[in-house]
């Protein structure tokens, strides 16, 4: 097939991106999980026949964009494409080939063209519940964390596998909502399938390879050019984070040479018998996200951009744990990856990197029975400030590197027995510097029911977000129960009247003040 010209390529690619964007909107409208429709905790991806990422929805979160094509490839390894039929739909939530924890279910649908697989439509979405312990850091193995679905066929000829569905429904707390979200995803991959086949019709394409190869090659060439613009050398960064009983060490070496980037996390702490481990797929996703944001932010995500990036994380480390490590809180570990890379490349790219943000994302899960006797389970998110850059202060209270909104106060108070006394900026929490870090926030939540289980995901309580080039660290965060610092690594029990203070960390400053 002749090479595609830059106009046709743009037209086809735009159509493909628009197909996944349309599917993303369908998921927002149809899913039950507030994580999908309010927090944007889902993604839609189109890959070529080899599982290489060709298009993804514009607003998706970095971790999913990076992991989902790998999910497709792993699924192809598990289930030979030759055995697939038009109308098949596949499912898995294996953390190692998926997004890193069981709560995200991935759905994959092969797209057929003239009797063979031309590509895959894939989505992943955080379902309302997957069974197991409720997002607890205390889980010691994967088996405690919920219902595990290996790569399996969910549908053939439009008929769902009732055995699988019955098992899933039986093992989760919210069978209707969890099943509803699976259907929302099946709808989305079917929509992508339809739109992609129409696009191939419109442009008389007999597959996606010609488009994919051309886009990958062009993107790869440009990414190599951008990497070549970074001074060659070995750039290193080490930092400590809160850890469990003892702090964790995160280490990275970014070697830039010959238009390629080699990122090596050797020296990072070993995997832990707690749910803080971050599978390699997630580590990889956060790494490529960071390098793309630094070097080639304007080109839509695709496999070509990542070809010049090589990543190594030692097996058995918290950035590449072995099965069956517990992984439920992997974001709290994986969200440090961009900070490491910024730190390493600070000297090489001083105008582009940012000081550390007051992330990872903070989470409070509460579950119990309200005073009227109804059971409830809610999850609340809290964001800190972002780090400053060479020419800009950090942003106050904004999700980064993830992109998850906080629940509105009125919604929180109407769905859980809580009263929120205040939610305000922590004015002095941004790190000092020529450019200041963004401020965190303080929220005080009063529990209005007895015997409520509270589980937290927090970071940067011991170690604030470091600044760059002499900028000060952001203020550390804090969780207080009735004014007393709480151990956020263990489940806490709240009584009626208990006041939980959540103070999120500020971002680091940039440059001496």
């Amino acid at each position, binding site marked *: 097939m002749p090479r595609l010209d830059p106009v046709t390529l743009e037209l086809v690619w735009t159509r493909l991106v628009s197909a996944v964007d349309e599917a993303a909107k369908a998921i927002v409208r149809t899913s039950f999980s507030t994580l999908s429709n309010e927090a944007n905790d889902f993604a839609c991806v189109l890959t070529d026949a080899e599982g290489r990422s060709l298009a993804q929805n514009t607003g998706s979160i970095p971790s999913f964009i990076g992991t989902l094509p790998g999910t497709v490839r792993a699924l192809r390894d598990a289930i030979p494409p030759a055995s697939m039929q038009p109308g098949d739909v596949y499912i898995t939530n294996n953390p190692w080939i998926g997004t890193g924890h069981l709560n995200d279910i991935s759905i994959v649908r092969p797209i057929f063209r003239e009797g063979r697989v031309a590509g895959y439509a894939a989505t992943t979405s955080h379902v309302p519940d997957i069974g197991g312990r409720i997002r607890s850091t205390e889980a010691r193995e994967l088996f405690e964390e919920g219902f595990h679905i290996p790569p399996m066929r969910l549908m053939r000829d439009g008929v769902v596998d009732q055995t699988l569905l019955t098992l899933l429904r039986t093992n989760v707390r919210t069978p209707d909502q969890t099943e509803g979200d699976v259907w929302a995803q099946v709808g989305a991959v079917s929509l992508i399938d339809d739109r992609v086949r129409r696009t191939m019709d419109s442009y008389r394409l007999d597959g996606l390879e010609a488009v994919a190869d051309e886009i990958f090659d062009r993107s790869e060439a440009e990414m190599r050019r951008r990497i070549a613009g970074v001074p060659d050398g070995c750039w290193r960064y080490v930092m400590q984070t809160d850890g469990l009983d003892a702090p964790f060490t995160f280490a990275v070496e970014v070697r830039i040479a010959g238009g390629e980037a080699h990122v090596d996390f050797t020296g990072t702490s070993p995997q832990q018998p707690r749910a803080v481990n971050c599978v390699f797929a997630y580590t990889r996703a956060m790494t490529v*996200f960071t390098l793309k944001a630094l070097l080639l932010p304007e080109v839509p995500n695709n496999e070509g951009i990542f070809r010049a990036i090589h990543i190594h994380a030692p097996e058995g480390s918290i950035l590449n744990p072995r099965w069956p490590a517990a992984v439920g809180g992997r974001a709290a570990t994986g969200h440090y990856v961009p900070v490491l890379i910024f730190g390493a490349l600070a000297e090489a790219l001083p105008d582009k990197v940012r000081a550390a943000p007051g992330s990872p994302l903070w989470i409070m899960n509460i579950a119990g029975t309200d005073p009227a006797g109804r059971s409830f389970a809610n999850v609340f998110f809290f964001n800190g400030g972002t780090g400053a850059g060479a020419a800009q202060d950090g942003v106050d209270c904004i999700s980064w590197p993830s992109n998850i909104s906080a629940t509105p106060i009125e919604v929180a108070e109407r769905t859980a027995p809580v009263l929120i006394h205040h939610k305000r900026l922590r004015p002095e929490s941004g790190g000092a510097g020529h450019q200041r870090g963004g401020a965190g926030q303080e929220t005080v939540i009063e529990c209005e029911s007895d015997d409520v289980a509270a589980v937290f995901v927090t970071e940067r309580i011991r170690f604030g977000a470091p600044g760059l080039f002499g900028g000060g660290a952001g203020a550390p965060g804090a969780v207080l129960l009735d004014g007393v610092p709480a151990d956020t690594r263990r489940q806490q029990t709240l009584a009626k009247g208990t006041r939980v203070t959540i103070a999120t960390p500020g971002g680091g400053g940039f440059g001496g003040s």
Partner: protein
Amino acid sequence: MIASSAPSLGIDIGGTFTDLVLHDPAGGRSANIKVLTTHADPVLGILDGTRRLLAEVGVSPRELGRVVHATTLFTNALIERKGAVTALITTEGFRDLLHIGRERRYELYDLALRPPAPLVPAHLRFEVPERVKADGTVLVPLDLAATEAAADAALAAGAQSIAILFLHSDLHPAHEQAAAAHLAARHPRLPVTASSSIVREVREFDRGSTATANAYVAPLAERYLSRLAAELGGLGIAAPLLLMLSNGGLTHVAEARRAPVQLLESGPAAGALASAFLAGPEEERLLAFDLGGTTAKLCVVEHGEPEIVFGFEAARQARFIESSGLPIRISTVDLIEIGAGGGSIARRDAIGLLKVGPDSAGSEPGPASYGRGGTQPTVTDANLLLGYLDPGSFAGGRLPLDRQAASAAIRALAETLGIGEDAAAWGIHDIATEAMAGAARTHLAERGRDPQGFTLVCTGGGGPVHGYHLARKLGIPRMIVPPEAGVASALGMLAAPPRVDRVTSLSRRLDGCSADFLGDAFAALEAEARSLLVGSGLEEGALSVARLLDARCVGQGAHMPVPLPPTPWPEQDEAVHALIGDAFRTAYAARYSRPPPQVPIDLVHARVVLRGAAHGLPPQSVASAVAPPVARRRRIVVDGVAAEAAVHRRSALPAGFTGHGPALVEEAGSTLVIGPAGRFSVLASGNILVELD
């Protein structure tokens, strides 16, 4: 529809021109005039145009039965951040709510991203002791003295308008109302906006954003609308001044002054109505397509009514990116707006692909062919090279286009892409049109609409140029191109009915609602809506009421509007539950293509839409020319290949004339492009109908 015998006047203020139209049903006459918008004081342009138009038609000011006005002034004030100095008074502990916002980035890879700045700066945000809980119990009584002190401090700091946002005021507005009443009594001339008086919906950030936007434009609305009403009265016009709402309905000055945020999309609403009017009542389903210099706007209009949504985003700071603007919860035309227009700049992107927009050359320096210093190739330059535009007669001959400059700009771009000049020009046209098609395709699909049942109505300078290719891309079989917009665009809104939308939060499960509870909630909304129209001169004819619920399955995050059937409200709880359950399942299946799961239904908001009757207007007609037109020929590129097109002057085409593509039909402000797959005919109304194979 009701026919009113008194003449009516329509006034549409746009960025460049103020259009005025007068319609006299008795004499069967319509006339219009276009004057430059007088930005420093827009009233002057209106008065000047009104005087001239009345004199021209020979209608005395006292004869006018109604004056209808649409304006983009308020939305421009918001976009340009030129509104009033606004203060915000909130529940103690929550002064930073609007600053903190939704805590999400609207773009993932931009490390230097800034969220939209709130309309109220930090030093003008005040807290007062008060707190109502989610169940309506008062935890902390409202401190009126503190409210007064906050207002005094705000005024001392220069505030010209105040918004009040208390938590849970959508369910329990008493504190907000008491605070607003107290401030109104103390400061009768100070505009005060209580969030619950604008939008009684859950979600404090969205409600607060809407309330502050209202407060931000309120002083301008107050000054402008009072003055306009007074000055029109000064001309001897006794008819009431009616304003076009964002949803295509009409309201009166008092309501527009109270809640001007409802008028933010007044201009586009008038545009959508104009398209419907121009296309004629026999067109049941149309896609209104307006293409100007910087943006394309598309809107679905069915049976004469534009599609409505209950919220939108104003003043997006990163052009057209979702979430980069201010959420505004009002009922408004469901508009697709894309950053693609005549001035959109074409460029080579980082990996060598051709991109068009959203950056625009605007009108200064404008496209390369304007010869005003622009060197970057634009969509207009491409359309010129493709042969669609006549360099000598563009914009009625007032702006001769420089073909060589366009060619140089596009050739330079073509070389960097490694393609020929014609291919680049066609590529620009194709990609710009694809941006519009992509947005429209998704929009229609999401609403379960099939493009084959639609007619594309093309307006604006660029609509007729891109309409053919857009229709082809969408699979739309018919296009209507009205005679030059402007002649009758303001006429469309003279047919608009009065309309009031009211909403209130329910935040309850259906199984926990009695028939009386819901019946009373709707009745209260209807009474409030009716009180707005009664005695206002707006309530001519019968009023129709529609009831809707925003509902979802328990546990679902997003809710959807569920229209209830217009049956009498049942007395039994079970009957009401069945009525709502059925309506919910119908709406759910239509939206999600599958029945809802067996979980209880959650009711979020109740809505009432009260509408009056539409006014009747005569069909447009065109004088038939006698001489058969003689067409010239010009080389054009269409569908990527060169073709010889017949070139017609529109004014020379009589009703009944038919032809086929490739053809061009030129008029002063635009050119209709018809490719080889199109046949066209001039209708008695003056519209051109293009049918595609």
